[in-house]
């Protein structure tokens, strides 16, 4: 019997049950199959929910402007202080100017990640289109800021003055490559983490349909979920802090 069930599951695994990636499909919300650039899709829905959640936390939560904060307000203040201090520590005092931008990035990513962990949710940050958009925006802004502030002096970040002269061209080549790989790693790190975690949970969920292994499957889902909660925050943090590091390079290109 058990063998039969397993055999069936395996047979179905190839056909029906294992669709761990289907959760990532972009679908129009109101019927139709065509996803045009303006179509209202599940992406729209979950990004809208993200905006509402951020609004609830940072605007409604702080509406009392209490000196002794409520719980929601202190969470909002915590997020504010967290990013503010991160920019100050990593990018320096002159990075504070870009605080609203980095705060926007961080809040969007952290809320998308956490909302994506809700059952039936669509994780917008699991798509390289989204994370790539963010990363390219960061890359372009940082490059523009660098050239705007320092002109061609910005190219100093590729020319490491402390290194022996012979090594400098080689290092410069490496630095240039690493600079242009930044948006790639920046975006794929986030999307990959999100996608992998959700896909793995979905795979375990598929196994839960098989009676014999469903307890293990459920335990595995729980463990993965706990890990994903951690990852959801850490990836948002990593994205924000890397943005700060890139910003620091743009503001202070002399190592």
């Amino acid at each position, binding site marked *: 019997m058990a063998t*039969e*069930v397993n055999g*069936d599951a395996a047979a*179905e695994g190839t056909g*029906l*049950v294992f*669709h761990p*990636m*289907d*959760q*990532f*499909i*972009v679908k129009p919300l109101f019927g139709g199959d065509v*996803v*045009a*650039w*303006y*179509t209202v*899709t599940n*992406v*729209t829905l979950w*990004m*809208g929910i*993200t*905006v509402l959640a*951020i*609004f609830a936390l*940072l*605007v409604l939560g*702080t509406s009392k*402007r*209490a*000196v002794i904060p409520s719980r929601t*307000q202190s969470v*909002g*203040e915590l997020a*504010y*202080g967290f990013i503010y201090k991160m920019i100050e520590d990593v990018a320096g005092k002159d990075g504070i100017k870009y*605080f*609203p*931008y980095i*705060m*926007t*990035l961080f*809040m*969007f990513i952290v809320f998308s990640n956490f909302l994506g962990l809700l059952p*039936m949710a669509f994780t*917008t940050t*699991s*798509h*390289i*289109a*989204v994370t790539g*958009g*963010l990363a390219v925006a960061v890359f372009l802004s940082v490059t523009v800021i660098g050239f705007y502030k320092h002109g061609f002096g910005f190219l100093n970040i590729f020319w490491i003055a402390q290194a022996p002269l012979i090594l400098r061209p080689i290092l410069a080549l490496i630095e240039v490559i690493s600079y242009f790989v930044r948006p790639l790693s920046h975006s794929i790190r986030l*999307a990959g983490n999100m996608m992998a975690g959700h896909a793995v949970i*979905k795979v375990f*969920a*598929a196994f839960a*349909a098989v009676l014999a292994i469903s307890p293990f499957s459920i335990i595995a889902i729980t463990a993965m979920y706990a890990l994903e909660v951690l990852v959801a925050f850490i990836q948002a943090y990593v994205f924000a802090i890397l943005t700060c590091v890139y910003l620091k390079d743009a503001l202070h290109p002399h190592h």
Partner: protein
Amino acid sequence: MTTETEEALGEGLADVIGVAAHQPTESVSLPQIDFSSFPNQIFWLVITLVAIFFILSRVALPRIAAVLAERQGIITNDIAAAQDLKQKAVEAEEAYEKALLDARADANRIVAEAKAEIQAELDVAIAKADAEIAAKAAEGEKAIAVIRESAMDSVKDVAKDAAKEIVAVLGGKADAKAVTAAVTARMKG
């Protein structure tokens, strides 16, 4: 039969996880690299980011900054006020200590004054008493002298009488004048 049940279960599960059960195989590939959805995602991403940015930069961040600044101000003020009160407390303590010292000094002075006054009064009283005692003593001495005088006279009388009697007993006739002279002479000697 079993296969049918499993199939139904699979379909049910697929429904639950939001997946159309019978999908063409080509869409099973990674939705992330389905470039046809990119414009849509990027369009909504831009709108979302702009919305979040305006919510944050126009409302949320200035408000939180104001709250934090206000709290910081209140804390600073409170600390300053506490410092003030502490300073005042220290001053009050110092004033108290000073008052205590003054009071102690005053008390000592008053005690010394009182002592001196009492001493003076005492001295006066002692002197007076001494004088009185001396006067009384002088009076007593005088009285004693008078008594001694009268006693001497009595002794003279007794001696005269005794001499007359002795002379009479011896058979002589006592001459009063001679006896008195003799007694007086003896008594001087």
